[in-house]
């Protein structure tokens, strides 16, 4: 039944209906509402027999999940940001040992500087840990992805990370349909582990592997992870038959005939679609592709979506590693090897900075006009950066080529924000 729900509550309900048996929990903003809700479900007996463990750190949370999964229990936990890093060693261990743990990552920036708001630097920092990564575009997708995640994890014996934008999705209320218990039970049967710790048939798990076998182990792990591409599509299809809706690995909007394609992950996709609609009303054709399955990356499927006639591809990145760059663009380039399209990167929304519709409309328009530089930091305060850099060392860096200030919206916190009138947009406060 469709209800107006907070994202976190809906996710907790969905996870609850997947009947996890052990939920280790450690709090971190902005995932707390999820684990609290699950704790309540377990304590009230709604999830009978399940165990809720309040552990002493995120590292302990993932470790306890490993233990529970090892004896054959369906296991779930949630974290974000610093917490995800703190359990990094255990993440690799979980995937290396093949435990189908499902975890929500309420995407939040990584410090220093400490920041509690949304961006993708946390999950992106763990691209290599061997977990399947899914990104939700809205809260309905977040709910459906958790159910799909358990099925996918248990089919492949691999852990799955469901990434949900912190605050933007977790704390947003919107109409959401949480699948009925009967439907979830039908879709997600009792887990049959391929092996587990039991005195009935002792096994040694976690042996030391030397140079003579390590490469083969890694190769096999890679093959297994790649199977998620087909498995996700198949499970997604099965889910659709059951509940009448599903989540595709790649979503498309106004793809037909578009010469400019924008690629993005997570909640910004919705605002991008609205921006594309506005442009369409003006006769400009821009398509939006949303990436839900990020790891393993769907190279072929993405390449198939981008017609040879596409001239501009823009990747919206919600994280950026100093010195390394943006994480999604190289995947897109790889998918588009041989294509003649211009690929541009736009870094937006770092540390929770709002990505305004007006800014995106302007951005998409420039993209369509092939005037975007290779790398853009949306709404960078170029003057502030210039001042700071000059203060620290003489000789200003050139920031003007990679920044684009498109939004005048006054931040709704403590200070009045002076507008930058170098680029003509709507001005604030004064009569129109």
């Amino acid at each position, binding site marked *: 039944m469709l209800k*107006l729900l*907070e994202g976190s509550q809906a996710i907790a309900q969905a996870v609850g209906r997947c009947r996890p048996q052990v939920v280790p929990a450690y709090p971190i*903003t*902005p995932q707390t509402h999820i684990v609290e809700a699950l704790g309540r479900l377990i304590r009230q007996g709604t999830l009978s027999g399940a165990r809720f463990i309040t552990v002493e750190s995120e590292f302990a949370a993932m470790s306890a999940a490993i233990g529970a999964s090892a004896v054959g229990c369906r296991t779930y936990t949630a974290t974000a940001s610093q917490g995800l890093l703190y359990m990094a060693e255990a993440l690799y261990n979980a995937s290396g040992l093949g435990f189908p743990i499902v975890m929500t990552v309420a995407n939040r920036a990584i410090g220093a500087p400490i920041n*509690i*708001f949304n961006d993708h630097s946390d999950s992106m920092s763990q691209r290599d840990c061997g977990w399947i990564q899914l990104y939700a575009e809205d809260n309905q997708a977040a709910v459906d992805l958790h159910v799909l995640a358990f099925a996918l994890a248990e089919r492949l014996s691999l852990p799955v990370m469901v990434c949900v934008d912190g*605050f*933007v999705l977790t*704390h*947003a*209320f*919107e*109409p959401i349909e949480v699948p009925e218990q009967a439907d979830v039970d039908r879709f997600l049967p009792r887990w049959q582990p391929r092996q587990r710790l039991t005195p009935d048939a002792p096994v040694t798990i976690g042996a030391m592997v030397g140079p003579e076998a390590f490469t083969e182990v890694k190769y096999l792990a890679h093959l297994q992870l790649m199977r998620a591409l087909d498995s996700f599509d198949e499970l997604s299809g099965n889910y659709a038959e059951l509940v009448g809706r599903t989540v595709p690995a790649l979503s498309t909007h106004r793809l037909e005939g578009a010469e400019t394609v924008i690629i993005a992950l997570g*909640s*910004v996709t*919705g*605002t991008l*679609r*609205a921006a594309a*609609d506005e442009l369409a009303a003006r006769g400009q054709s821009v398509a939006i592709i949303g990436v839900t399955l990020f790891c393993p990356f769907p190279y072929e499927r993405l390449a198939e979506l981008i017609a040879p006639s596409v001239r501009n591809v823009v990747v919206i990145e919600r994280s950026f590693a100093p010195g390394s760059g943006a994480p999604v663009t190289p995947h897109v380039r790889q998918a588009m090897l041989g294509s003649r399209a211009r690929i541009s990167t736009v870094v937006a929304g770092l540390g*929770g900075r*709002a*990505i*305004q*519709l*007006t800014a995106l409309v302007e951005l998409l328009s420039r993209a369509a006009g092939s005037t975007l530089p290779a790398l853009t930091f949306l709404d960078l305060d170029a003057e502030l950066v210039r001042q700071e850099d000059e203060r620290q060392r003489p000789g200003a860096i050139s920031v003007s080529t990679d920044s684009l200030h498109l939004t005048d*919206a*006054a931040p*709704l*916190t*403590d200070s*009045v924000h002076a507008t930058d009138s170098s680029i003509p947009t709507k001005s*604030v*406060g004064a*009569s*129109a």
Partner: protein
Amino acid sequence: MFEVRIHGRGGQGIVTMAELLATAAFCEGMQSQAFPSFGSERMGAPVAAFVRMDSERIQVRDPVTEPDLLIVGDVTLIPHLDLFAGVRENAWVLLNSSSTPSELGLSELCARLGPGHVVCLPATELARRFTGRPMPTGALLGAVAAVVGVPSLESMCSALTDRFSAGVAQKNAAAAAEGYRLVRSEVGADA
């Protein structure tokens, strides 16, 4: 699409008000969305929340920059923040205060938005009277129903019942009804 921005301080129920408004709209068969500007758990700090209502599915998720309705739950914020940034032509502004708009220094805003569009209501006093607690939520929701008309007062009460226990919901519904009545009479007199 109808966009709302609500300002207040942490602990005044601003986020809950947004949630209730979105629920009320949903009750009437609309698509709706509500979210806070940030969620650091700190009492007294300025907080904003946003609501969108539409007949079509809502795709955007960015903060509301051009509200059709602005609710100010705590007028002590006025000197410190540019609360009225982006307020549209013909928008409504609803303020929790026992003073008049001109006493609050908002004559220019009144002139721009037109008669009956800037409304003050002593919501905290109403709340204290009907619920015993200084949370202006219920009264302000009633006021919204009165000035905007949609969602209706009935839907607001429905949302309250959904969210709170019977006793709490009933008291807030009473505050909402009184807020509605007061504003209708005030706006009715101006219109």
